[in-house]
Structures are given as C-alpha cells and as structure tokens.
C-alpha cells in the first residue's frame, strides 16, 4: 500500500514533467526547464520519510523535489508558466519554485547554491530540538563546487540533522562526471569529512526508500549523512537541448530501459502487492491531477507589469 502511494507520487512527477514539456513546446512555458523525469524514485523515496515540518532545498532540476515534498501541482505549474497564482507569483519560475508552506525552501539556479542554505535550515532544526531535519538535494555537478565541501564540514562539525542527497545522473550539461571529477566522488568526500555515506541505485524506488529510511532516522538523531543515488538523465540538460550532440544513442535510451516507475510497477504486481488494475487506476488519477493542474495554471492571469517591484522587501516597497 505504501509502495502503491510511492508509485502514484512518482507517476505524478512523471506526468507533470511530460505536461511541462508539452506546454513548453506549445509556447506556454517561458525560459528553460530542467526536467526531473527518470529521477523520480529519488525525490519520492527520500521525501517518503519526511513530514511537512522537515525542510528540503533543491536545485535547477527541482520540480520533482517540490511535488514529492507535497507541493500542489497546480500552483507549481502556474509558477512554471509565469502566472500570478504560481507559488512565487510568477517571479521565480522553474528554477526558483518554492513552497514554504510545505517546507520546500526553493529550487536554485546556482549549482551548489542551496547547500550552505541547507546548513542553516538544519541548524534551525537542531535548535528547535524537535527531531526535524533538512534534506539537501543536489546533482553530481554540485560536488565540484567549493560550497559542497564547506557545507559537509559544517554539517559534520556541528552534528547537523542534515541529509545530503546527491542525484548522480553522470552528467553536468554536456560533460560526463569522469571528465569533471577525479577521486572517489561524493561518498568518499563525505567519508573524509566524517559523514556517513552510502550509494544506492537511484532507479530502484525500493532501494532508495530503504536506504533513505535509515539515513533520515540517523539525521533525526543529529547524525548527518550523504546518500549518493545513481541515476540517469533521460533528456537533454534542459527541455529544449538536443542531447544527442554529445551523448551516445545508447546512453540516451538507457534511461527508459531502467525506468524506475515501470520497475516499481512490475515489482508490485510480481509481489502481489498491487494488481495491474490498481496501477491503471493510479495512472488515471495522475492524469486527472495533471489535467486539473493545467486548468488551474492556464486560468491564472499573468502578473501585471506595475507589480514588478513588489516583494523585494518585507517592509515597505522598493523605496
């Protein structure tokens, strides 16, 4: 039953991303979007263990984290379409979507930029002393930025209730991880900082759920951890980027073969935990939810130009 819910959440993310891609092709989504499809098991498996009071920080590829943490698909889609009813009133867009009401402190356009912020959120959790934790999602590219290292050190030194989740999809735009990193990667670096770390198959929802469960529990006891999830970037770096310019055909299609959703679905049926009909119903439900989200987003107005300097400051206006 639990895993059927997880299946449903993953599917919701998948359908959301598919819809974003469609709407983008139709010219309804401005800018670039970095789609999360194929990586759904990670956000879903980790957030499965979180409550509304826990915090997450995210990246440029943040739709999945947002939905998994409990954000509303309609308000998210409205944001991504630049509408006034979006979570950020159209100011943020795909790369800055946030929903503070569910503890989602924001996607981030700067690779690694949210990691220092996560240490502060985690320190807030620690000071509150009520077992809350913070999860920082980031890509393998962020491992190369200095703030990754600084944040690991701080988390380790202060025993922060902070779980680092690396989504190792092997690419940063057009450069594979082997041409960007020497050494042992995120796990080895975390270990060198005294942070317990482990790797998991990020395309296997069950494996992610299990590994994350342990690490979340440790984090709640003030033991920071790092989970390195192997996964695959299905498409181009962003939705409009032709990926085959620098990737082999095989690498481009390997993702679909390893699809975490199909994999979980098969396993549920094989284990007798769900029937094909139940999965079908979940899929239909996801479609309905995304249709509703689209209707909500499309009916929301664009922000008015005169409001361009609203929300810069808490107190008073720009001047």
């Amino acid at each position, binding site marked *: 039953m639990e895993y059927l819910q997880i299946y449903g959440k993953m599917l919701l993310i998948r359908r959301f991303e598919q819809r974003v891609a469609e709407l983008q092709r139709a010219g309804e989504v401005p800018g670039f979007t970095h789609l999360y499809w194929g990586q759904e098991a990670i956000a879903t498996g980790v957030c499965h263990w979180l409550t509304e009071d826990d915090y997450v920080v995210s990246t440029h590829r943040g739709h999945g984290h947002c939905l998994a943490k409990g954000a509303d698909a309609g308000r998210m889609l409205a944001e991504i379409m630049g509408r006034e009813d979006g979570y950020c009133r159209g100011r943020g867009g795909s790369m800055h979507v*946030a929903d*503070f009401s569910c503890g989602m402190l924001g996607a981030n356009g700067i690779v690694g930029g949210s990691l220092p*912020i996560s240490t*502060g959120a985690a320190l807030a959790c620690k000071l509150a002393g009520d077992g809350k934790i913070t999860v920082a999602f980031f890509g393998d590219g962020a491992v190369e930025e200095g703030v990754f290292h600084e944040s690991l050190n*701080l988390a380790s030194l202060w025993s922060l209730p902070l779980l680092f989740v690396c989504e190792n999809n092997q690419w940063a735009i057009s450069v594979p991880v082997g041409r960007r990193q020497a050494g042992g990667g995120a796990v080895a670096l975390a270990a060198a900082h005294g942070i317990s770390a482990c790797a998991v198959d990020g395309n296997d929802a069950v494996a992610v759920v299990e590994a994350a469960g342990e690490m979340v529990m440790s984090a709640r006891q003030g033991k920071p951890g790092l989970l390195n999830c192997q996964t695959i970037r299905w498409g181009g770096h962003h939705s409009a980027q032709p990926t085959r310019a620098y990737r082999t055909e095989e690498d481009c299609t390997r993702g679909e073969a390893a699809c975490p959703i199909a994999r979980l679905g098969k396993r549920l049926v094989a284990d007798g935990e769900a029937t094909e009909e139940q999965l079908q119903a979940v899929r239909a439900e996801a479609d309905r939810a995304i249709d509703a989200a689209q209707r909500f987003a499309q009916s929301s107005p664009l922000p008015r130009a005169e409001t361009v300097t609203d*929300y*810069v*400051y*808490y*107190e008073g206006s720009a001047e």
Partner: protein
Amino acid sequence: MGQITYAAALNRALAEAMREDPKVVVLGEDIGALGGIFTVTQGLLEEFGPARVFETPLSEACYVGCGTGLALCGWRPVVELMFTDFLMVAMDQVCNQAAKLRYMTGGQAKLPMTLRAPIGARNSAAAQHSQSPQAWFAHTPGLRVVMPATPADALGLLASAIECDDPVLVLEHKSHYGDKGPVPEGRHRVPLGKAEVKRSGKDVTIVGCSRMTLLALEAAEQLAAEGIEAEVVDLRSLNPLDREAIVGSVSRTRRAVVVDEGVLDFGITAEIAALVHGELFDELLAPVVRVGAVHAPIPFSPPLERAAVPQVADIVAAVRRCLGKKPADI
C-alpha cells in the same frame, strides 16, 4: 549620556538584542573566546552560550548561507565577516541568494539576517583588507546597507538592522572601533533610511557616510575658520537612500560636495551627484564636486595609503573648488 566606543556600542546592540529576542543568534570567525578580532562580540559566548554564539570554520560562503537558512526558518542571525573584503568569497550567498530570495519566492521568504563587516583603509592592512565596496551592495536590490559613523549610530543602526525583516549589511569602519562618543543610555534606534544633518551650514553641503562624515566635520571646522559654513549630511543608510534629506540640504545651500572612501569611478558619489544635479538643475550654483578613492587597489605603504583615500585636506579643497575659489585665492 555615557561615552562608549563604537565597538562597545555595537557590542551593546548585540547583547541587548540577544536578551530581548531569543531568536537572535550570532555567527562568525573568532567570535567566541576571542570576542571577534575587533572585540565586538566580547562576552556574548559567556552570557549566551554556544547555542546562541556560533564560531564558524573559515568558510564565508557557507556560514553566510547558514545565516540565510536560519533566517528562512524563523531565526534572526547576525553574521560577522572579519573584513568586508572577505564578502567576495561569499558574494553569491549575499547578492545572488539572500538578497533575492524574498523576491524569487514571490514574498514567501522572510529573511531577517544582519551581516556585519568592517571597511576602510587603515593601518596598512593593504589591498585585500582595506576595501570600501559599498557601491556594489547599494547596487543590489533586496539588500539594505547602512554605514554608521558614530558610536550612537552604530548602536542605533545595528539594533534597527537586527529588527528588520530584510537582509541588512552593516558596514562598520575599522578606524572607528576604538573611538568614543556619547550614546543614549536607554533604548536607542536609528531608523534605516534616515540621513542626519550632523552640522548645519548655509554655504555648501558636504554629503558623506561612515568615516567620511567625521572627516567632513573636521573639514567643516577648518572651513568655518575661513568663514565658510558647511552643512554636513551623514547618509547613514545607502539603501534605503534618504534622497529627501540630500536634496533638502542642497536646495538650501545650492552647492554640494560628495565624499566617499570607495573608489571614485562608478562609486557612491556618482549616484548622489547625479541625484542632486537631476533634482536641483536650476538651483545649483556650481557643479557637484566628488571626492573618492583613487583608481587603484589600496596600497600598503603609509604615504601611499594616505594618498589613496580622501583626507580632510581633500574635502577642504573640494569645498573651495565648489565655491569657485582657485587654490591661488586662498
């Protein structure tokens, strides 16, 4: 009013804020046992303990970001940078993250973080410990910037900064920490965005902030002996900028000199000069005279360091030029 130092005034603001509001915490390097290299955090660790006073590793980007995270989650962090120069290591976290988060989240984020950092060329600290880059931060929407010149303003502005729900950068001047001045005994606040006329005069307005306010006051003394009555407007805040106070003063004196310790080119004085010329086009009797640091990094050797940043004599000369007096006239 008791006389206390600028450093003690800042220390008092911190201690009072921490007593009043349990959500106020401080972060920074060497702020514990040592009490900060300029003594501003002295006694805080003893009084409030390690759950309120966080001594950080040497990683400015991370601990500024840590402050941001704390602020997003309901705390009121006050983060000390040992020198303003080191903000460059944390520039992304200050200007790309903290300053923008409220806007980018459409008003969801509330970010009551105070950053404190010392500026100024003093005592041959050389190019990487002497900068006055206030223009960068004043050019960053979302970030409040204040620059106290006196102990009383240091207390009042820092107290207001901590209470402000936006990120505020308090640029302190290294030369001032040991300077004593009168400070009100009780509760004292200086509102963000309010300049102060620190000396009245009818012949010319000198606009400055931080240490330049003090030099302007000295210059005004000297000029008074020559019969020139200079008004000194201390900006105190760069964001919000008190445009009314500036324009108000110059509309009376009809002449203005603007002084800043930052590099002159594309610096603070340009904005003030442009403002005054724009608003008082028909009233001004002479072009605004700008005084700022030379086009160079801050040098080490004392005669060069002195030559690099404005001195009292430079302000006096600028006022004379503004009044149309050639050096030969005097």
